[in-house]
């Protein structure tokens, strides 16, 4: 097993696109992935989470993960599901621009001020990709370039103007981890 991660946040933060980007990048690089999403019907602000499992072999993972080795916390609201299932000592990558890393229990907490980093990278809407770049660099799951390719494939034509900023955000997230 490479990793299991629950990405949690609120609608509008890009949780689902982050998860799809990760799962597609893993698939495109020859790994196996499972992605299970759960989100509310609200346009913005409702619960949004996604579980991604990445492995070298064919997966038979539960779509509702009983436990996860990693959590990516974009927002503290609705994060109980992810944090309750995070294994003791697991990795919690926390968007410290919004959520309080000190509130996370028994975990290896990595605070990433993703909103601030995204603004500095001139990609203010792409804090999620900052977090994704940081997470894959910590876990060494797939390369940032593979994430970029997957993101490009997933972003619809009418959002193509955001691709360059998303790529800057992925790099900035990876850079924030490597600079530590």
């Amino acid at each position: 097993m490479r990793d299991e991660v629950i990405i949690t946040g609120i609608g509008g933060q890009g949780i689902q696109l982050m998860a799809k980007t990760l799962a597609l990048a893993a698939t495109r690089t020859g790994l196996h992935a499972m992605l299970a999403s759960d989100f509310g019907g609200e346009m913005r602000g409702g619960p949004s989470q996604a579980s991604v499992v990445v492995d070298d072999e064919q997966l038979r993972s539960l779509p509702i993960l009983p436990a996860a080795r990693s959590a990516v916390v974009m927002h503290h609201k609705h994060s109980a599901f992810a944090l309750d299932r995070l294994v003791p000592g697991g990795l919690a990558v926390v968007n410290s621009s919004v959520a309080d890393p000190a509130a996370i229990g028994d975990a290896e907490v990595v605070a990433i001020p993703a909103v601030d980093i995204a603004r500095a990278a001139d990609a203010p809407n792409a804090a999620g990709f900052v977090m994704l770049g940081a997470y894959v660099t910590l876990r060494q799951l797939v390369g940032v370039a593979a994430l970029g390719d997957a993101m490009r494939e997933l972003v619809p034509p009418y959002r193509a103007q955001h691709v360059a900023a998303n790529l800057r955000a992925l790099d900035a997230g990876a850079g924030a981890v490597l600079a530590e």
Partner: protein
Amino acid sequence: MNGTVPARQLLDGCAAITESAIAAGCRFFAGYPMSPFTGLLENMSRRLPQVGGHCLNAESEIEAVNMALGAAAAGVRAATGSCGQGLALMQETIAELALNELPLVIVNMARNQQDYFQATRGGGWGDYRTITLAPKDVPEAVEHAQLLFHLADRYRAPVLLYGDPLIAQTHVSVDVAARDFGQLPAKDWALDGTSGGTGHSRQIWTWAMGKVSAPGPGPDRHWRAVAAKFEQIARDEARSETHQIDGAETVVVAFGSAGLFVEHVVDELRADGHRVGLFRPVTLWPFPGADLAVATRNASRVLVFELNAGQMLDDVRQFAHDRGVVRFIGGVSIHASGLSFGPLLDAAPIRSRILEATA
């Protein structure tokens, strides 16, 4: 994108079943949107025209299943689907398909497991059953989709795939390739466009009375033959899977996604020293009763976990009634939206229920 399918793709269950059905030769689909079935209709509507097929968004489920009946009568590999609520509307036509011997794949992308009786007992009229495969996850749904087209043609009968919201919406890296299940007889019964009055027109009629020039067997002989065919299917097509069954004092019976969850919990419990195993009916009809009897031969306790009020329980009791204990540990559990499973479909509550029942 053309008709070719790249080796490994990240697809949700609806897209994966669509690709698998197309690989199996499905060229006609009709349906009416209903969550979580809608994804299948959307994928079919996008993909079938790319491979020279047809997909129609019907005005109701009744219309959809009858359109699919028409395509099947013309010899095309055809499919339809809905949720259990939509399949309720289709029951009359499913009975007609069974009794006039037309092959059709019907996908019940169910909202939960409350359609077990509907799938295994049928709601139409006459002596018929529907072969029903209940995959535990997306990769198995891909296999089942292709197998179902083969079984439908082999037995000239409507067949069911029992999916659910987790299978519909979970994305998995899957390899979709056409599978070979062996030779099938030519569809020499299919309507070929020859019209009445030519002396050559073909007829597909539930009552099988035939034409003045070529009388058919009539309802008595025909329906006895159909009933005998379903008896043969019951003998030959039951499928099941066991997990950690050796030395199991307690055997948990679960189907579909619930089976996958129980499989996981059984592994956890085995690691803690509990002698628990899983029996999973892969075909809901024919129910693999003989396999269940063998799998539970040395068990003192049989537990049934399903997300309904206890429907498969009837079938389990039929074949495992003489085991020490047969106990229902499932229940109705519905998401607040009404469109998916509730909190009971999760490893922790399933573990608690098994432990409570074995204490």
